């Protein structure tokens, strides 16, 4: 247990404060009990999706928009997990739990384990579970704090855009696709202007269309030997 705690300590330093930010934002922006923030941390367990849900719920977005937005937001993880999941030997509920709860942070801890320890997959789900406990703890503390202390909502309203700007910068650092990102900004602005009520659904559809066109023309260029 001691060893597990010291291995996962860096994740605690990340999850507890970020979870607290989520909790505070949740109870100060929405009229729900702190307990709902805990429920989201237990069941959804995805940072940016939970933050986005706050904004969606404040706008009373339809469940269809919520489902599509969260699916696509998390879709970036699909490719990350491939290598670890292929060696996942656990069976039963532990296997399902690993699939459910495997985050970037747990993934990097597990892949960084020394080879002889990495073979012991009990360690994999224990690490994963302890990491989720940090997240649940942070979200709950933050939600209780936000409920007890009267924080002016307007001053916290920038946390959500700030989180997405951070993710945007990191995406740019990794992919360097300035042209596509500018095009997406144009599509986003257009969708806000013309279809503000359905902005996310409309802009995501248009952006997917743009990506498919880009893909097809890229393939065409590749096959025509340009």
């Amino acid at each position, binding site marked *: 247990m001691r060893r597990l705690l010291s291995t996962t300590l860096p994740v605690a330093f990340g999850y507890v404060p970020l979870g607290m930010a989520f909790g505070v934002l949740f109870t100060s922006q929405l009229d729900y009990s702190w307990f709902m923030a805990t429920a989201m941390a237990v069941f959804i367990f995805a940072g940016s999706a939970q933050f986005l849900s706050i904004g969606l719920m404040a706008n009373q977005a339809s469940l269809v928009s919520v489902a599509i937005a969260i699916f696509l937001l998390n879709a970036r993880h699909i490719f990350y997990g491939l290598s670890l999941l292929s060696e996942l030997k656990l069976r039963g509920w532990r296997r399902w739990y690993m699939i459910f709860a495997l985050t970037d942070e747990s993934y990097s801890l597990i892949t960084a384990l020394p080879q002889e320890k990495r073979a012991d997959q009990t360690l994999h789900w224990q690490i994963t579970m302890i990491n989720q406990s940090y997240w649940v703890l942070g979200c709950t503390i933050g939600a209780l704090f936000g409920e007890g202390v009267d924080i002016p909502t307007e001053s916290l309203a920038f946390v959500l*855009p700030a989180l997405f700007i951070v993710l945007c910068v990191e995406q740019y650092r990794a992919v360097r696709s300035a042209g596509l990102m500018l095009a997406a900004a144009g599509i986003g602005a257009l969708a806000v202007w013309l279809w503000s009520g359905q902005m996310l659904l409309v802009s995501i559809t248009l952006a997917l269309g743009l990506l498919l066109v880009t893909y097809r023309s890229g393939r065409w260029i590749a096959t025509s030997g340009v």
Partner: protein
Amino acid sequence: MDSYIWGVILVGTLATFATRALPFVLLGRFAQHPLLRFLGRYLPPVLMVLLVVYATADLISSSVTLGVVLVSSLCVALLQWTLKNPLISIFAGSLVYALLI
């Protein structure tokens, strides 16, 4: 009112689980398909930009000026670009925003 948030939690859980379970389904079959690899690379940055527009437009429509949002956004972006620490970027950006409104 409570049924709405349980609905959000339910679809949010299913949608998140779907993305985490998908590698199993894709494994070996479609994972190498060039279209999926293309989307896996370029969808995330595009989606992040849309979410930034979505979240900031929400602020601007609630009587905060475009200037305030732009200045605070630039602070976050510059801090993240240089220091690479999300908590610092988000906290400092929100502080700038809270001071400007």
